[in-house]
């Protein structure tokens, strides 16, 4: 306190009775300068298009015409379209399958990669590599791997006497194949998990060990609670990603066979750019936005029951 008073009473500051405010103003200006490019980008490339898409969802815009308002016609068409419901079903099945798979497998992988093993950095790099590859390239790779005639997967199965399915051409296998493929790129989450794991104080593990706990006790009572904010983050991001699956079904199956892999985003794209129903596609995008927002809201609401924030005081 005395140090602060000495600073405030410095002779050079006599003309300004509130130098602390000036410092905060400087900080505010610096803050504004730093965030301005991002805000401008957000306004121009996100908020304005978002507003336009909201408007277009009530029009008959077809890319070539002058949009005319059609009220709720696009929303009515969407809810009465069997293929829209089918795309919702495909997306839900995919999301409900891959979100738990992504979280469990990537966390398990991260727990292994967090060990002090020889050449661990090499392994971490190898597992992270798929994350830096283009989705199109990965899709093409898997198209070759899963080719029912010449693909490596079926060739390997053939060696052990199993006739592999028509992975991408069979109605019942196509979506499963894309789900399997999706798990391949879980390395994307490694840095997030590892940063969370390495932030856990080692004293806590040591305390459990001293108390006679085994690896499961450490995982159950230390690792998972302290990782729960990261789990929440991954859960939210995974829900958003899973509901926006697009590249893989487009490249690998083009939504087929018979719409078995036509996800919500793929059907939205089709309506927008193949059938030129931009108004309908905008309505679909808004419905997805609201649905994802609701799911995210639920995830956050539930977080008070299972997410532990160190230093956060429990309410109530």
């Amino acid at each position, binding site marked *: 306190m005395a140090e602060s008073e000495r600073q405030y009473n410095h002779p050079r500051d006599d003309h300004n009775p509130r130098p602390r405010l000036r410092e905060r103003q400087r900080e505010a200006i610096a803050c504004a300068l730093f965030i301005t490019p991002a805000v401008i980008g*957000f306004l121009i*490339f*996100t*908020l304005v*298009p*978002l507003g*336009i*898409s909201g408007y*277009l969802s009530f*029009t008959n*815009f*077809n*890319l*070539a*015409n*002058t*949009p005319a308002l059609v009220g709720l016609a696009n929303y009515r068409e969407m809810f009465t379209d069997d*293929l829209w419901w089918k795309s919702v079903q495909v997306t839900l099945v995919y999301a409900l399958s891959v979100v738990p798979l992504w979280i469990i497998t990537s966390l398990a992988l991260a727990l292994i990669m967090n060990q002090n093993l020889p050449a661990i950095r090499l392994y971490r790099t190898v597992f992270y590599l798929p994350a830096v590859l283009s989705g199109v390239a990965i899709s093409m790779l898997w198209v070759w791997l899963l*080719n*029912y*005639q*010449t693909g490596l997967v079926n060739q390997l199965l053939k060696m052990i006497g199993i006739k592999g399915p*028509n992975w*991408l*051409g*069979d*109605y019942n296998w196509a979506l499963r194949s894309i789900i399997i493929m999706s798990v391949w790129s879980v390395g994307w989450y490694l840095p997030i998990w590892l940063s969370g794991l390495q932030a856990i104080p080692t004293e806590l593990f040591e305390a459990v060990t001293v108390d006679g706990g085994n690896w499961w006790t450490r995982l159950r009572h230390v690792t998972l609670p302290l990782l729960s*904010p990261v789990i*929440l*983050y991954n859960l*939210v*991001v995974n829900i*958003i990603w899973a509901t*926006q699956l697009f590249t893989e079904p487009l490249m690998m*199956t083009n939504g*087929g*066979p*018979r*719409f078995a892999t036509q996800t919500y985003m793929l059907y*939205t794209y*089709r309506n*927008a*750019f*193949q*059938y*030129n*129903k*931009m108004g309908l*596609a*905008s309505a*679909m*995008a*808004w419905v*997805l*936005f609201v649905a*994802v*927002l609701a799911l*995210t809201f639920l995830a*956050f609401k539930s977080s008070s029951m299972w997410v532990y*924030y160190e230093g956060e005081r429990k309410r109530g």
Partner: protein
Amino acid sequence: MKSHRMTRRTFLMWSAATAGAGALAACAGAPPPPAQQPAEAPQEQPTAASAPAEPAATGASIEYFSYDLGPANESREQIADKFTELNPDIQVKNTFLPYGDTWNKLAALMAAGTPPDVIYADFSVVNHALEGNLLDLKPYFDADADLAVTDAFTVDLLDPVMAKYGTQQLYNLLIGTWVPILYFNMDLFDTAGEPYPTENWTFDDLRATAAKLTTADGEQWGIQWGTTLDQTGWTWWLQKPADFWAVPQAFPAKTTWDSPEGLKVMEIYKSMGLDDKSAVPFDLMGGFQQFGAAFGAGKSAMVLGGDWDAGWGYRDLPFKWGMTFIPMINEGYRPNLNTTQSGNVIAAGTKNKDAAWQYARFMAADETAQGYIGAAAYETPVFKKVAQSDAVMKPDWAAPGYETRVKAAMLPGPSLCPYPLSTNLWEFSDKYLDPTVVQVTTGEMTPQEAVALLDKEGTPHYQQLKDAMPEPQS
């Protein structure tokens, strides 16, 4: 002092909200275009645009906008070079884009008021025609005596569908034609001792031969339904709406799948797919990595495809193959084969109308330009003198029956453009036609159920397009 630090919870909420908003924004698409008045006839009287040696514009630069034509892109470069050689004051810049991107970018350019000058177009631009974004070429056409000589061309340059898009204006100056073809693997026919298909074949002949060329082990089939021509696209050529020929009513008000022809088409799918199993199953089609799928892999004796496949990918196949007309549904009933036609449209907003017309006209009716088009073999030239030349009918690499491309294109009658009749019919094909055909071949749907469903779902799409068309003027 109150802390302004962002908590992890807040940070996560903002991250999720931003990611969601970003994804939604991606669906906003292009901004709506400004309202445009219908294209007006050119203000100035067309110059002697028909004479490439007499430039209509000086110091002009025009952009030729096209989807990627693969190996045929070179022909467009040759045409541009030749044109500039003859018209030194007009520079031509070629722009090639992937097919799907072409139409999205064109819409954006139209909306921005900066369209390309000359556009290589198919029926995908019908919406632009209806919105007045395309130049009416009729005044230019009427001023050109050479173009009015109908006998000089393999097709009618005033075709109500492909040239006029069902309107009263002329939008598309045709440069080439496409027809469906029955390709056959001569090696497989020779091995089986079967005679090659002929232009008098009916689908019954096709069925009988396909069954003989199908092996029990599932390694070889008699027929494959289409490749680059989508898997069921060929059926459009057979399913001729009863009132289709009522010109100028270019667009019927309803589909007529529930007709003897439509039912026959579905019976063909059923008999060869389900009963004989002589057709490559649709769910196996994607497993072939070669150009031409099972046919390209030498595992299908025949394929129904577009004639562009001949010049684009089949010429490199490692076996002997031939071409002929697609079979008749019944003896004496040959559907019109002069089907889709390629051509150029001109943007109403071009700043170089005369130069753009001059270039479009050069591509359609100049012997050298048409020769380049013929040599590229993507489409068949419309200028009869070139189309019927040996260079086009019998190029060095030509397979037996290659001249079918020209012969089929010259069958009488207006062109039938049933394939991408409009974006709405793409939707119809994707949603109803293709899945229905698949279900017929697997036995999940009978031919009767199929045609009933196709008419129920197809008629609204026809009606939608018809409603968008301006009323015919008396």
